[in-house]
Each structure stands twice: as structure tokens, then as C-alpha cells.
């Protein structure tokens, strides 16, 4: 196998109209998570083959590219099956692997076949073991036979051709074989049903000496026959993934079988058990039996996205086999909208069909590299069964509910009216939230209560939490903030550095020059100055225009180190290390080439028009003791600065926080997955690290148990949209929050989610185009941010009043005042 695996892609647009009536706007390449799927309908189609899966597959099959978009994740985060677990990421205590675009090689090779428990050597140290045959695939995906017959042989030929180009295998039944596949025979694997006569080899119906043969059903005799017939081949047994699969596999392995293919149904369900759980059970059983390492497990059934591959591996698969998704790649919408499937209408052109599949697999592999990189792994083979690097919603949600004041049915929450049809926004930033935020930004007054202004409709995160008083009495009446302690002291270490205090418990989160334009940065800085709080430069350097506001500007040091100089570190009162970003945990920054304008390039000192990548991780920090050194460095350069550390939320976020404290940080910012972004792969937004509402109490309680909670400031960010979100984050255990998207909404953002496209946002917010960014007027914009925050303060005061508290410090960690809204 070649040292570097690269999948060449080429555009392969559909020659017909795509079938489904999804709500795709002109600027959409595909449906983003959390958006409304059908025009004027709340229905979401299918639960597994979702409109997002379908349209993103189309996009990948056409372009070979990873779906990337601006803005944050708009969906609920947790769900059923594959959506009930997340992949972990590495941070500080261990580095991620910088694998995307081949910066560091991450291998997706997997071996299928029987494995020896150990090797034997003679006295001279020479190997004497004879290894059983194995098949190495360059990516852990192989193709099942077509799930339903399609007209002609075009689709079949396309599939086999794609397998050939990818270096993987297409499983065919003997009936499907034909001489037109001869040139691709290396990619053809045979699936034989018990009733199939085995001797077709002689009859010339099958390719001579297949590398891989699969026997249907628990039939050890047939397996032996096949083994004798094709001694060089790997012979697999295909079984349903169900309750007693473990024992069946055990017996097969004891009988010598080296590969077992376990299949669930079309929606990744194994007889009522979701595929991940059923697979984990088989894997664990085989470990208990001491047999797991001797056998390879292929799993199939409802594998519909790149993240499913990674998650299946983590749950114990060596590889996955796919079927229905191939039809989707060719343009079918399956039953997402119950519409017709153009693939069934006529014979596909095989070259086109192959290219679509190759493109899809190329995009899947790139996404696999991204999540593996985030997990800190460089070998797909080492991911198998590595459930230690997964986060399970069932575990974490129980932990969250344990610290809340109880649970009530969602219907008990008194939602305020909302517009019938959302015209803008998504499930997290609903039309109502956008409208009420715009109104607050205009007037500076709290909303009048005629429209919902506290929560969105994502079905997760802060939308599932409410203050108990809201259940009893509805929203709190705004109050005069002057009567409450709203301040936040940023240095509690008593280390001789300044005890900077901000008069309200939040600041502006980092947004780089590049992701947003200068007027936006200026408006944010002016607002920060007006309130005596901070805004952050983000990772794109420190524009000179911000220098007059330096006392209120955080210098961010991110992994790309763009624009970071001693000068910019020395002028800051607060210096922030950005280890990770919640919207794309474990991934580096990515400024697309078209946003790298002349001025951006000048500030970052890079080449104009080329995409700019921030690596991940900091290549000077591969461990917590490196991290201490890193913090010490900034403290040496600026002896008066405080140090904040921005991290996302891996499963060991508590250890990351403690490690940061011992490394000398004053502030730890936990950035959750609902956070905004200029551009992030869709896969990262909902599949890596844990939601912020799980992370905050975890960290808060852990720091308390360590006895250091009051020496460090914990700031929560990533999807803090409203005053209620701020209050909830603090109640869960944060000292304060960092705000990003809400400030953009105040400036007029409507969550178009096209921040990364072309020159950027058509409203001039997330753009560096000189003409477009002139649409934002800093001299007015800063007032809108100030207005929004004035309103938030009044609401926060109202919440404190309703809780009978005198200040935000009293609220911190009082998670008992919150209840969980049960579905």
C-alpha cells in the first residue's frame, strides 16, 4: 500500500433535478443542522435519513469536499443511536494530531482477517509464525451489494469501479458478476448465500481468486468449504447483529473464522437496540472471552455519514459496510421526503456513478482524519473499541440532572408566543430570539414579553433548562441592576498581578480579523470600553485601530500565532491562549482563501488569497507541563498581564481546568459546541466534545473538590444567546460568560450561516471585503451592543431578584435553582 493515500476527486454534478422539496435557499449548498427542513412545515422527514444527511451527502458526492459552514451548530446535540455519543478530543494534557490536509499522516488503513494472539521466534530470533491471510483496506469502509436492484448495470459497474479506485472492496453476489467487471476484479469480493453453489468458480461466473469472500449466515461448514476453495482469501461470515450475536461470533472464532460481518437494519437498529450499543456489547463480550483480537468485525446498517464510521469504530468495529448511502450519493432522497428516487428511473452512467462514490468517500475520509486528529489518534486500527475516547450522553446527562433542582415536563414551561413560520434563524437562534435581540439592541430596553426572548427551540442545551421560578411564575420582571453586585474580579490568585474587575459578568469572545471586518471589531471594542469590560482580538492579529482601546482588548494567542508579537502581548491587560474553539473542538483555524484579502494578509503577514490554517494543537504544547511553560512565557513577556486559557470541552475538561490552574492561569474559558465560527466542518459542530451545560458543572464541582474553586475564574462561552443563558451558565457553576454571536446579532446578523462563502456575509459582518464591511458602522454599532447588554443587565437583575439573591456571585454554582425540561 502506498505510503500516502490520496483520493483524487472531480466534480460530478447531478444531471437531473434533485428530487426532494427541501428548503434549500439560493446560497445553501446543503441543509445545515438545526434549520427548518421543509418550507412552511415543522416536519423533519425521516429521523435517521435526515434532510441534513441527504443534502450533505449530495454535496459531498458532487464536490468531494467536506461540508463546511459559518455560524454555530443549530441543533439539539444529543439524540438517538449514533447521536447519543460524541467523540472525545485531546487538549493540553495530550495533543491532537494535525492530520487534515496531510500535515501529519494519519492512517485510515484497516486489516481484515484472522490475527494471531502473538508471534513466535526461533532461538536465533527468526520469525517462525505463519500469518493467516488478511486484506488491508486504505479506509475502513467497504461496499455492500446494492440494497435494491437498479436499472441496467451502470450503478453496479460504477460501484465496483469506485471500490477499485479507492482500493477497497465491493461485495457482490455471484449473480451480479459479469465480464464487464473484469478490469476491476481486484475490488470485487463475493457474497455467497447458503443456497449458492460454491463451484461457480469453475463455471467462470466469478472472478478468479477473490481476496475476500463472505458467507451468509452462521454456517461453519460452508465457511470451511470456501476456505478450502480459496486458501489465499479472507473468508468472512455475515450475521445479523442481535442479542446473541456475541456467542455466535465466539463459536465462529473458536472454529477458526477470522472476519465476521454483523448487520443491523437500515436505520442502524439491531432488533430494538441502537447499533452502537449492540456493537459495543458484542465487542465487550469478545474481549471478555479473550477472543476479540483474533477476529475482525465489519458492521453495517444505516451507516449514513462520516461520523458514523468513526463512532462505529469506537464502539468496536474494524470496518463498516455501506449500502443505502450509495443510492443517496447518486441522488436519491430515500424516504426523507417520501419522494421519488431518480436513481430508479433509468440506468446510471457508470463513470459518473463511480465519481460520486469516490467523491463521497474522499470527503468521508477527510472527515475521519479530522475527528481522529481531534481525538489525538493517528491510526484507525487503534480506534477500534476505544470507547475511552467517546462521551456518552446517557452518562453525562445523568450527571447534569443530578445537580439540578429537578425535572418537569417541557409543557410546564411557559413559552411566550413566537411567529408561526420562522423566516430567519435556526432552532437555536429562532426568529423570535433574533427579533427580540434586534429590538433590545435598538432600544436598550428589556423585551416587553410579547415574544419569546429567553430560549430557542433546539431541544437541547440551555433550551432544556429553566429556572424553577419560570415554571411557577413565568419570566422575571426586569430590575435595576444598580441594586445588585454584577462585577467579576478576574484575578483571584493573589499572585501580585492586578486584580482587574469588570462591572458585569461577561466580555466579548474572540473573533479574528478575517472572520469579521474591522468595523465589527471596533464596535465591539467601543462597547467593551463603554462598559469597562473586554473584547478579544481573536487569532488574526491586533489591528492598529484597536490600540486606543487597548485597556479593553484581550490579546489572543491562538495556535497559528498570527499577528502575535511581544508588543501585542505587552499592551494587553488580559492575554488569552486559545487552545480550542467550541464550534470545532480539536480542529485548527481555517480562513478560506477568498477572505484572506490584502489587509488580512498584511496583518497576518501571510500570502494574500491563500487559505490560512491554524494548526492544532499548539505545537509548543503537547502536555500540561508544556502548557505551564507556555503560560510562564507570556507572564515573562508581560509581568502585569493576567492569563486566560480558552479550551473546549473534552471528557476530561475537569482535568484540563485543574491543569490550567496549576499552570498559573487566572481565567479558564470553557467554550462549548454551540459556539459561533467563521467556518467549521459540520461534522465537528455536533460530534466532538461535550455540550457546555455538561462541562460547566463538571469543572465547577471538580475545582471545588480540589479546594481551588475560589482561586480561579471560570468563564463559559459557546452559545450564550440571552440574559437567561448567562444566568443559567452561572447557576451551573461559571463565574461569567464570553459572548460572541449575540453581539453580531445586535449588529444585524440573521444567522444566515454563510460567513465563509465568497467574500463573506452579505450584511458586512463576517467579511473583510472593504466594500461589504462598510455596511457596518462602528460608530452606531457599538451603541447597539451596549443597548443589548443594558437590557441583559436589567433582566439579570430581575432573575437575581426573583431568586432572592443580591449578586451574581451568589448565583454561581446554585444549579438547584434550575430544572430540566423533559421531553
Amino acid at each position, binding site marked *: 500500500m502506498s505510503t500516502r493515500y490520496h483520493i483524487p476527486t472531480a466534480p460530478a454534478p447531478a444531471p437531473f433535478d434533485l428530487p426532494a422539496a427541501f428548503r434549500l435557499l439560493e446560497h445553501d449548498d446543503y441543509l445545515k443542522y438545526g434549520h427548518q427542513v421543509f418550507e412552511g412545515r415543522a416536519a423533519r422527514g425521516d429521523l435517521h435519513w435526515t434532510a441534513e444527511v441527504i443534502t450533505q451527502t449530495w454535496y459531498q458526492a458532487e464536490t468531494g469536499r467536506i461540508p463546511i459552514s459559518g455560524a454555530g451548530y443549530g441543533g439539539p446535540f444529543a439524540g438517538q443511536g449514533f447521536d447519543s455519543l460524541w467523540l472525545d478530543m485531546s487538549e493540553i*494534557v*495530550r*495533543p491532537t494530531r494535525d492530520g487534515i490536509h*496531510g*500535515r*501529519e*499522516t494519519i492512517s485510515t488503513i484497516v486489516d481484515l482477517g484472522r490475527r494471531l*494472539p502473538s508471534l513466535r*521466534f526461533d532461538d536465533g*530470533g527468526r*520469525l517462525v509464525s505463519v*500469518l493467516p491471510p488478511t486484506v488491508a483496506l486504505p479506509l475502513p469502509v467497504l461496499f455492500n451489494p446494492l440494497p435494491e436492484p437498479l436499472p441496467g448495470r451502470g450503478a453496479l459497474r460504477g460501484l465496483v469501479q469506485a471500490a477499485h479506485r479507492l482500493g477497497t472492496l465491493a461485495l457482490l453476489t455471484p449473480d451480479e458478476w459479469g465480464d464487464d467487471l473484469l478490469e476491476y476484479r481486484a475490488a470485487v469480493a463475493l457474497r455467497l448465500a447458503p443456497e449458492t453453489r460454491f463451484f461457480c468458480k469453475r463455471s467462470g461466473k466469478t472472478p478468479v481468486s477473490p481476496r475476500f469472500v463472505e458467507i451468509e449466515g452462521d454456517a461453519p461448514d460452508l465457511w470451511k468449504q470456501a476456505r478450502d476453495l480459496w486458501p489465499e482469501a479472507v473468508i468472512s461470515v455475515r450475521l445479523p447483529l442481535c442479542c446473541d450475536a456475541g456467542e455466535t461470533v465466539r463459536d465462529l472464532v473458536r472454529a477458526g473464522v477470522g472476519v465476521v460481518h454483523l448487520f443491523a437494519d437500515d436505520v442502524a437498529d439491531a432488533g430494538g437496540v441502537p447499533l452502537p450499543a449492540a456493537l459495543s456489547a458484542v465487542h*465487550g463480550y469478545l*474481549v471478555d472471552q*479473550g477472543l*476479540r*483480537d483474533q477476529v475482525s468485525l465489519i458492521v453495517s446498517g444505516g451507516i449514513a455519514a462520516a461520523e458514523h464510521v468513526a463512532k462505529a469504530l469506537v464502539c468496536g468495529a474494524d470496518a463498516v459496510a455501506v449500502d443505502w448511502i450509495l443510492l443517496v450519493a447518486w441522488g436519491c432522497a430515500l424516504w426523507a421526503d417520501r419522494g421519488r428516487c431518480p436513481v430508479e428511473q433509468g440506468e446510471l452512467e457508470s463513470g459518473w456513478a463511480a465519481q460520486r462514490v469516490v467523491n463521497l468517500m474522499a470527503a468521508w475520509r477527510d472527515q475521519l482524519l479530522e475527528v481522529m486528529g481531534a481525538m489525538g*489518534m*493517528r*491510526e484507525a486500527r*487503534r*480506534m*477500534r*473499541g*476505544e*470507547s*475511552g*475516547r467517546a462521551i456518552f450522553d446517557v452518562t453525562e446527562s445523568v450527571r447534569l440532572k443530578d445537580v439540578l433542582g429537578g425535572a418537569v415536563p417541557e409543557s410546564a414551561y411557559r413559552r411566550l408566543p413566537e411567529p408561526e413560520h420562522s423566516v430567519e434563524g435556526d432552532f437555536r437562534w429562532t426568529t423570535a430570539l433574533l427579533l427580540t435581540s434586534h429590538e433590545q439592541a435598538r432600544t436598550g430596553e428589556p423585551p416587553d414579553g410579547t415574544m419569546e426572548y429567553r430560549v430557542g427551540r433546539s431541544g437541547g442545551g440551555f433550551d432544556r433548562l429553566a429556572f424553577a421560578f419560570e415554571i411557577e411564575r413565568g419570566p422575571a420582571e426586569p430590575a435595576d441592576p444598580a441594586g445588585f453586585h454584577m462585577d467579576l474580579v478576574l484575578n483571584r490568585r493573589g499572585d*501580585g498581578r492586578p486584580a482587574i474587575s469588570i462591572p458585569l459578568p461577561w466580555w466579548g469572545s474572540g473573533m479574528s480579523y478575517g472572520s469579521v471586518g474591522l468595523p465589527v471589531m471596533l464596535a465591539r471594542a467601543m462597547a467593551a470600553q463603554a462598559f469597562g469590560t473586554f473584547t478579544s482580538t481573536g487569532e488574526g492579529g491586533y489591528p492598529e485601530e484597536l490600540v486606543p482601546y487597548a485597556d479593553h482588548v484581550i490579546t489572543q494567542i491562538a*495556535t*497559528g*500565532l498570527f499577528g502575535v*508579537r511581544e508588543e501585542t502581548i505587552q499592551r494587553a491587560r488580559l492575554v488569552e491562549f486559545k487552545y480550542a474553539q467550541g464550534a470545532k473542538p480539536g480542529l485548527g483555524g481555517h480562513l478560506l*482563501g477568498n477572505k484572506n484579502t490584502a489587509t488580512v494578509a498584511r496583518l*497576518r*503577514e*501571510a*500570502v494574500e488569497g*491563500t*487559505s*490560512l*490554517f491554524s*494548526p492544532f494543537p499548539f*505545537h509548543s504544547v503537547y*502536555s*500540561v*507541563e508544556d*502548557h505551564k*511553560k507556555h503560560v*510562564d*512565557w507570556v507572564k*515573562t*513577556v508581560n509581568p502585569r498581564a493576567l492569563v486566560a486559557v480558552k479550551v473546549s470541552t473534552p471528557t*476530561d475538561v475537569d*482535568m484540563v481546568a*485543574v*491543569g490550567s490552574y*496549576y499552570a498559573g492561569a487566572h481565567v479558564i474559558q470553557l467554550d462549548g459546541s454551540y459556539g459561533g465560527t467563521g467556518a467549521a466542518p459540520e461534522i465537528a459542530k455536533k460530534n466532538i466534545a461535550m455540550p457546555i451545560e455538561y462541562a460547566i458543572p463538571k469543572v465547577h464541582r471538580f475545582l471545588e*473538590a480540589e*479546594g481551588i474553586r475560589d482561586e480561579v475564574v471560570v468563564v463559559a462561552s459557546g452559545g450564550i444567546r440571552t440574559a437567561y443563558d448567562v444566568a443559567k451558565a452561572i447557576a451551573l457553576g461559571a463565574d461569567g460568560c464570553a459572548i460572541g454571536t449575540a453581539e453580531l446579532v445586535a449588529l444585524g446578523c440573521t444567522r444566515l450561516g454563510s460567513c465563509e462563502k465568497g467574500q463573506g456575509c452579505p450584511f458586512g459582518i463576517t467579511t473583510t471585503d472593504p466594500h461589504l464591511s462598510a455596511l457596518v458602522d462602528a460608530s452606531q454599532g457599538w451603541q447597539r451592543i451596549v443597548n443589548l447588554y443594558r437590557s441583559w443587565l436589567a433582566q439579570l437583575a430581575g432573575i437575581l431578584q426573583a431568586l432572592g439573591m443580591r449578586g451574581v456571585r451568589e448565583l454561581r454554582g446554585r444549579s438547584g435553582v434550575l430544572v430540566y425540561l423533559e421531553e
Partner: protein
Amino acid sequence: MDTERLLESRRYMVRGEEWESRSPEAAEGGCGVLGLACNVPIAGRHVVEAAAQMHNRGNGKGGGIAMAGLDAAQMGVSPQTLRDAYLVQVAYLDPLARQEVEGAGLASFDLFQGYRVPVLDDDCRHCQVPGLEVRPPDVWRYFARVKPDALACFAETHRLEALPPRAVEDEFVYQNSFRLNREFYASLGEKRAFVLCHGRDLLVFKIVGYAEQVVQYYRLEDLTARVWIAHQRYPTKGRVWHPAGAHPFVGLNEALVHNGDFANYHALTEYLRQRHVVPLFLTDTEISVLLFDLWDRVYGYPLEVTLEALAPTTERDFAVLAAEKQVLYRAIQATHLHASPDGPWFFIIARSRPDEGQWQLLGITDTSMLRPQVFALYENADVQLGLIASERQAMNAALRSLAAEDPRFLPLADRYWVARGGSHTDGGAFTFTVHANAPSPLPLSGENASPIPLSGGYREGVRLTCADKFGSPVAVSTGQRHVDRARLRPAGAGDSFRRMLETQLYHAFDNGGSRSLFEWTVERLSAWTYDEVAACIALLTALGQAGDEEWGFVRQVLTLLRDRQYDPGDKRRASLLTLWDEGLSALFDSAPPIHRLKSARSGKPHCLRIAWDSRRALRPPDDAGCVLVVDALGFPPEGDDSAARCLVTAYELGWCHFVAYNWRGGRFAACGLGPHTAGVQVELYGDVGDYAASGLDGAEVHIHGDAQDQVGQILKDGKLVIHGDVGQTCLYGAKGGTIYVLGSAAGRPLINAVGRPRAVINGTCLDYLAESFMAGDPLNGGGFVILNGVTFDGHGRLVELETPYPGGNLFSLASGGAIYLHDPHHKVGEDQLNGGQFAPLSESDWALIQPYLQENERLFGIRVSALLTVDGEERCPAEVYRKVEVRPLAVLV
């Protein structure tokens, strides 16, 4: 079959373990590790120095020591018992547990000796180890053999009769300790006792504290061993720490310390569990040693196989292996790849092999060089010493400590190197083996190297060898000898020699030519004796005390002698460096102290010396040209009181010229000076720590010797000259400036650099050079790297490295800048590029880089004409240099 039976005998271990829900208790992340191996016994006090030097890589929550190759008399047993019996040390957290352990727990053993290990406060109630917060456990030491009937019963029960009796006894001991640990430690809420070690001739201590405190508390200062390893731990989780969680962890005859953190801990426990290997302490370090013990002892793998299983050879490294090696490695990977640790790791293992009469020290790194590591070798006729550590400065601290009391040692090693796991060049793993009572001394050097003079050597019949993963010996030098400092007599140089020298000295001084004196000296140096060298230094330092001008002149001469490469004749370079360094120290010490009101010299002193004790006397310079001499000894390695901050404070007071010496790993040297520092000059001597010259913006910094990691991060402008090697990720995110490196850069130099940094690296770097380089168009003001791929032989001659670049990732994803490769034989292939492309060297390219090569010649004496000379003939630049330029990539637009 026997292997399976052996593992089958452990079936009970996995029973009743609720292991699935267990996650590692402690995420380590980072640590400081150190190991040394020597053919002569080394006392613990030398380890104290080295461990203390890496204090800041731990947080005092765990420190540990292991020793192999012990002294029987110090252990209170006969040499035979030391060799044959198992040395079981038990730590008692609960003193009452001892009766139970000694009764039931060790019932199957014949105990030859059992005693409590003495501790610091035994005799003196008030004696305390400074800074030790948690009282270490009482440790009892037993020498034991398994009772024959118990062993026979065990073998019979598990049908192990076919195995060698020692293998069965080893397994018995292993399992007995497992049961003890489970009963007295892991299974309880209350942790009462645990086994520290149970191998032969192998001793382990660990505490909640720092490694050096282990030595102090258990009074190991005077105890000797042939192999030592030490560990500073930096755990982050849990308020209560137990010493059992500290490193080292043991298998049987090996102890392992680890710096890193696995990404696949869970899957590895599953791998082990299927083989009835069960960890009890829940850290990835324990997993590591269990893997090693399984492959090494139980499966009986050759060491190379075990190393390959731990750090598999992949990508290009695999492709260039010999065919039969590929077959073997493919089999190892097919069987073990999913059981190899992923993520960053670096192991140091100490082990005894009593039946082979060997003790070993092993260092193994991961495949991406994600942890800092450095190896070193020192040898003379009497002693051979191998070292492994996280940081060079720690090794030098051990050497310094040894040299201070034993003239056979020097404060510097002969050779230092870094490694990359799974590389085709050396495999990234090195083994130092101490052979006891060797029948005939073997040369330490490679086959092709000249033999080492053995006249006075290997007196004890004990010798040390070093080999890489493939078993290739690591050579030191060619037929040169070290100085015998016990017999060094400057007076022995003779009057005529001294007179000649004096004449030359004053002539050069009067004519202002430190370079001319240097050149005169190196022309003759190869013929000089060490006594003559010493006489030269004595004369120089005497001259240096005569006045400021003389002082500056002598500094320049000695510095050139220290930095430059030349033929030392029959002398070893490390010996000469030691002598030049001593001369320089004497010279620096003679600079007038800042706190004395009156200088001993006439007029305004042109240079003033400040030290830790006199730091408060810092004041503005008398004139702009004044040199501040900073004695960095005693300053903490980081923080507000660090030497780095002292430089900044002085700069703010108006000082612009700095000479800092006695640097002992202090970090952030020349950081924090701020913007626009052109005209500032910083000369650094000693072991300069991490992040040196990061953020530099105009100043000129010289590091006289090797530099460590993260040098020149975000460097903006100015000039950085490193007269040696540099560590990981130098010039990360640099914006500009010029850097010259005499030696090699370890890994990932210039990653994410933008703007216009220009770097000349005369050696090579292991991998990931100029990843994501974004430094514009080099012909239009952008940045570039010149990689010369050369080194020097023992006689100061320029030689080409085997390849200018061994790694598989060159210029990955770069969108700007260029690399100019000195590669006349086209050894670097397209497959090593990861985004870039080769282009011919144009005239404008040569016009661009020639001045940098000329400056390189001025700084290091590497002549441009020599670089252009290939096979004895000077070629035109385009035949010698190749350009790697950016290639438009789809992902970049």
C-alpha cells in the same frame, strides 16, 4: 503453548474486575524523565542534581527512582543473593499491614534478608527534606526466593513444567505481587501497602514529591547503581495522591518511567485483558510496562520486535526498509498495531538481566517526536556513560555533578542526539547495556570507526555499549583521548611555549584581532597537549583581567575557540570545550561586580557583573557601550525573579549589551525585551532553556552552545545565532528575523511561520520542516530556509550527512516561502514533499541566498566554497542546491 499456559494461569486476575467502567485515574500529560547508565557505579547524589534541574517539569505530586546494578554490600547481601534472589520492596502506607504482608502475603517465599530501608529522620528527628509535604511510606526490603514446593505446585497446577524453572519462578513472583497489590491496595477503599518492585537487582522508590526528594528521604545519596532512572510527575487530577501512582512502574526485571499520555488507553487495557494482564494502578504508565513485560518476558520477543510493536515503522520509513525487514515488521504490525500506544509518549526503562550479566537503560520515543527527548554518550578509557533525558540541561547537570568529584568525568558528553520513533535511520530507540565481567572488551564504536585506545581501559572488566533499535552500535569518536583533569598542569607546557604564546597574544591584542589569534591558535592546536591548552587559557584569562578592552578581546577569542569547529588532533572536542568553558567562566567571574562602588580597574568600568546575590544593585549603565555580565546561577528558571526578567529590567534601565553565563536551563532568555530592539546584543553561555529569544524584535542573540525547545517562537526581527543544535519547533509562528544554526533542528522548525523569516540550518532536522510555511515569495521579500545537511567529523572537517533530510514530511501544506536544499546527490525524493515541488535553482535564487551563506561562513567558518565542493570539485550552485517551492494546492484556495 507454554506462553498460553502461562497467561492461562492468570485467568483469576480478570475475574471480578469491574474494569470496564474504569478510566485512568491520573492523566499525566507531561513530566520530566531522566536515565543514566554507566560501567562504574554511580552514586545517587548525582541523580539529585539532574532531577532537581527538571523540577519545573513536575509539580511535586509524584517522584520516583529506579536503580539497577546495585552494590551487594550496600544491600547487605552476598553478590550471589543479589544476583539470584528477588528484591522485593514493599511500601507500607499502614504500618500495621506489614505483619499481614510478611505473614500471608510472602508465605511462599524463603526470605534471605528483610529490613526497613533507613530514612532521613531516623537518626535526627528534625531532619527534613525541604519542601516535602507528604510523608513517604515506610519501605521494607526483602531478598526472596520462592519455596521449592510452592513453585513445584504452581508449575504442576498450570502445567508449566516444560518452561525453564526461572521463567516459572518469575511468573510466580509477578503473580504474588499482583495479589498483594490487589489485596492491600487496589481492592480497598483504604490503601495500605503496595509492592514497589520485585525483580532481581532492581530497586524502585516512589513518593508524593519530587524525584530528588526520594533520594534525600531514603538516603540514596551514597548508594550506587550502574543504571538509574528518575521521574518528575505532573499529574493533574485528584486532591489526594498516593505514591503508588508515581513512576516508575515495574513489570518484573524492568522499571519504566513515562512522559506522555496515551490516546488509546482503553483499547490497550482491552488488549491486555484478553491476555489476562490486569492493571491495578490505572495509569497509562503501568499499561506501558505491562505491555513491555508481556512482549519481552512472556512472549520472549527479541528486543527489536518489542520496540517495533511499541513504535511501528510506517510511511516512508517503512518503504525504505530492507525487504526482509519489511516482512518481519509487517507481521509485527499485523499482530500488534492496535496494541501500540497512540499519542505522545517517551519511555525510559531500566532493567536488569542477571542471567546475562547485563543491566540496561532504554529510551524509546513515539513516532511523531511529541515529547522532548535527548540522548547522550560520554566515554573515556575508564568510564562510559549513557544518558537519556527530557532536557539536555538535566544531563549536563548530572555530568557536572560527576565531574566535580571524579576526574574521569567531564561536565559535557561527547555526543548528544535526538530521535524519532519508528524512523528508518535508528528506530528512535536506543539501548545502553552495561556488561558485567565482560570476557574481552569490545570496542564501543561502530565497525567502521577507528578503534578506541584500550590501553588503560575497562579496568573493571565492566563496559557499556550503545545500540539503536536495529542493533547498530552508536559510535562516539575516533581515536582521540580525553583530558585527564587530575593530571592537568598548565605549567607543564614549558617556558618556550608560553613565551611564544605571549608574544602572539599581545601582538594580536595590540592589533585588535581576536580572529587572527583564533586562527593562529587553531592552526597549531591539533599538535598541542592538554597542558599547553591549559597554559593558553591561563594566559588568556590573565590578560582578560588586565582591563575592559582586554576582557572583551579574550571573551571573543575564547568564544571562537568554543564555538568553532577545527581539528583538535588527538584531543577530544568535549575535553576542549570543558577547558574553554572553564576559561570563559573564570573570565566572566573576573568582571567587576556591580555592587562594588569602586571598580578595581581604573576609570569607568566598561563591563559590570551582576549575580543573584547582587541583583538588587542593578542600576543604569554608565555609558551606552557598557556590557552587563549576568551570572545566571541561582536565578530561578522562570518567573518574576528569573534571569530572563533580570535582563529585561536591565534593558529598561538602558543596558544594551549583555553577556549572560552559567545559564542552567533557565527559560525565556532574551524574551520580553519588547519591540524595536535593534542594537541590543545578548550573548548567552551555558544551558539555555526553552523559549530562548521568543518574540525577538530587532536584537541580536548568540547562544554559545546548544539550544533547547521552542526557540524563537513568533520571532519578529533581529538575528539569532545558535552555535550548536536546537530543539523542537524552533521559529514556530515566526514573522521575520534571521536565524543561523550550526547544527540541527530537531523537529517542526518554522511551523506556521509567516512574513520573512530566513533560516540557515547547517545540519538537518528529523521531520516536519516548514510545515504550513506561509512566508510569501522569497524572491520578493518573503522567507526561506537553507538546509545544508552537513556536519563535522572528529577532526573538524565538513562532511555531508547521509541525507540532508531523513523525514517524510517536508514543506507540508506550505503556501509561501521556499526551502533551499543542499542536496548535490538528489537524495531527497518527491515522496518526502507534502505539497511542495522541486524547482531548479535560478540565478536570482542564488543571488538571494549567497549573502546568507557568506554570513554563515563568517559566523561558523563553514566556507561557501566548501559547500559547493562535491567529490573534490567545486560546482556551480545550481548543481548543489535544489529549491523546494510552493505548489498550488486545492485546499489552499
